């Protein structure tokens, strides 16, 4: 009991309140400490604080760092349950307390009103975390006086890393809990949005045409109501087959809007945005797209000479694309891929493919310098030699 010191209930700077219990009696080892009956025991991140219920000035605290192990004594007819704290020897820095010397190496807390099980659980938890060490370490770095007290060396480092990992783990799992909840709700959400859309259609008179259109576009961008997933198909090839059909049907409209060509990267973003939750891996998407050319669908995958793979409409006419590109180049005398991309409002990769295609068809010729690759109308074929 000589490890206990006089104290007050106010917490220190980085100390946190954890738990408290009424009706706690203090035993110095085996002996009842008669002056310290019926008190309130408070567990903080750093200390155990015992306060007399009748007189708040009678307040004792025990640093958790003293605790070497914990034990529980169950209650019986004549005895109330107790928590036993085995303590390390008294340190020199400890303030004065009610007892200056004790022959016992443990104190006992008797829980006359119960609650010891919960208290024990909390106490074990707090002692296990050893927050008083974690807190001290960064502030006392470089102070040789403190070093002895801290867990240093490899063990200390390992402990720190473990602590860090534990915290990261809990953050991650907390984050994914939210996502799981969203996944569960996703189908419901899509169903709700559908029913809203239906209602709007019925009440079209009350809402202006413009608003309906806008609201519908929001709903549409919510995406694919029933995405093809791996779970819903037994075999891989069947799954990819279904997936490629879905990709085709989803992409037809956006492709028509953007000139008939799209890079696989864009496709990946579009599809996954439309799916919302059941996201596709790039590999699955690519495998599904590879099936497109062999299927009778409006959309197909085409590999260009440079190795770039584009998803494009089957109906998109190569000749007209070439003619259009050649015309644009002619109007501007010469164009580089990024200039053309700006003119037609498509990605640079697609613009480059169009230029290369037009070159391949003999409509353009190139000027390759350190400043970049530019394309000119193919005067070699159109104009005479001299």
């Amino acid at each position, binding site marked *: 009991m000589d490890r206990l010191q006089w104290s007050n209930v106010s917490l220190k700077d980085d100390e946190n309140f954890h738990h408290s219990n009424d009706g706690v009696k203090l035993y110095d080892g085996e002996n009842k400490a008669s002056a310290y009956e019926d008190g309130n025991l408070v567990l903080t991140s750093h200390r155990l604080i015992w306060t007399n219920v009748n007189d708040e000035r009678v307040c004792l605290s025990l640093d958790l760092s003293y605790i070497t192990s914990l034990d529980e004594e169950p209650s019986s007819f004549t005895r109330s349950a107790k928590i036993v704290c085995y303590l390390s020897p008294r340190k020199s820095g400890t303030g004065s307390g009610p007892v200056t010397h004790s022959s016992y190496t443990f104190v006992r807390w008797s829980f006359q009103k119960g609650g010891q099980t919960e208290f024990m659980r909390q106490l074990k938890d707090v002692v296990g975390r050893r927050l008083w060490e974690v807190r001290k370490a960064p502030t006392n770095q470089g102070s040789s006086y403190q070093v002895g007290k801290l867990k240093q060396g490899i063990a200390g480092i390992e402990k720190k890393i473990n602590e860090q990992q534990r915290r990261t783990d809990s953050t991650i799992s907390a984050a994914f809990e939210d996502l799981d909840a969203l996944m569960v709700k996703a189908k419901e959400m899509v169903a709700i949005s559908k029913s809203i859309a239906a209602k709007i259609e019925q009440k079209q008179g009350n809402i202006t045409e413009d608003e309906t259109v806008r609201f519908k576009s929001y709903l549409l961008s919510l995406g694919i109501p029933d995405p093809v997933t791996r779970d819903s198909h037994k075999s891989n090839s069947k799954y990819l087959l279904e997936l490629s059909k879905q990709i085709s049907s989803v992409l037809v409209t956006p492709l028509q809007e953007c000139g008939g060509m799209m890079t696989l990267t864009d496709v990946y973003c579009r599809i996954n945005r439309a799916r919302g939750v059941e996201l596709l891996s790039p590999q699955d998407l690519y495998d599904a797209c590879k099936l497109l050319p062999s299927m009778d669908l409006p959309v197909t995958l085409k590999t260009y000479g440079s190795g770039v793979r584009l998803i494009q409409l089957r109906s998109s006419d190569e000749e007209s694309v070439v003619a259009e590109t050649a015309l644009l180049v002619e109007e501007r005398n*010469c164009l580089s891929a990024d200039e053309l991309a700006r003119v037609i409002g498509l990605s640079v990769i697609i613009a480059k493919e169009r230029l290369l295609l037009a*070159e*391949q068809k*003999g409509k353009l*010729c*190139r*000027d*390759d*310098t350190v400043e970049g690759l*530019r394309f*000119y109308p*193919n*005067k*070699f*074929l159109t*104009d005479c*030699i*001299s």
Partner: protein
Amino acid sequence: MTTDDSFPWPWQHDFPPFYTLQPNADTRRKQEEAWCTLILSYCKHYKTHQLDVAEISAGPLFNNKSIQRKLATEHIVGILNVLSKKGHVEWLDTNKKSCIIMWRTPEEWGKLIYDWAKSFGLMNTVCTLYELTNGEDSAGQEFHGIENWLLVRALKTLQSSGKAELISLGEANDGVKFF
């Protein structure tokens, strides 16, 4: 080479893609054709018979300063190789550093000279090579003032087809007889 700068450059000379090897086969063929024509007419204009690749690659023929384009040396060699296949160029060394260039092939020269000799009634007569190149009769002809080695080569092509015979008159004064 004279400093006369009146050579009429074709439109390709100011066309930047002219200086990049075109990947399209059709385009490339037209581009090479244009280069061949340009090189021959340039050499003809300046009466150049021998080219040093390093020297010519720095010159205005392959180097258009106004549009800051030049044909890379490897491509110049490539074009000259094409000309060599057509009989206009003969490499003087295996490293392809210099070559002789004939804007007319020896066969073409030979035909030109033979047609002229025929029209001048020089058949079955012996005339000296000097007469051919510097005589009054040939004044105004394209081969007037032609270099001796080229003339000999032209006449040799005629000889091999049986239309002429070279006759050695001694002391570097050769003659030729047309049939």
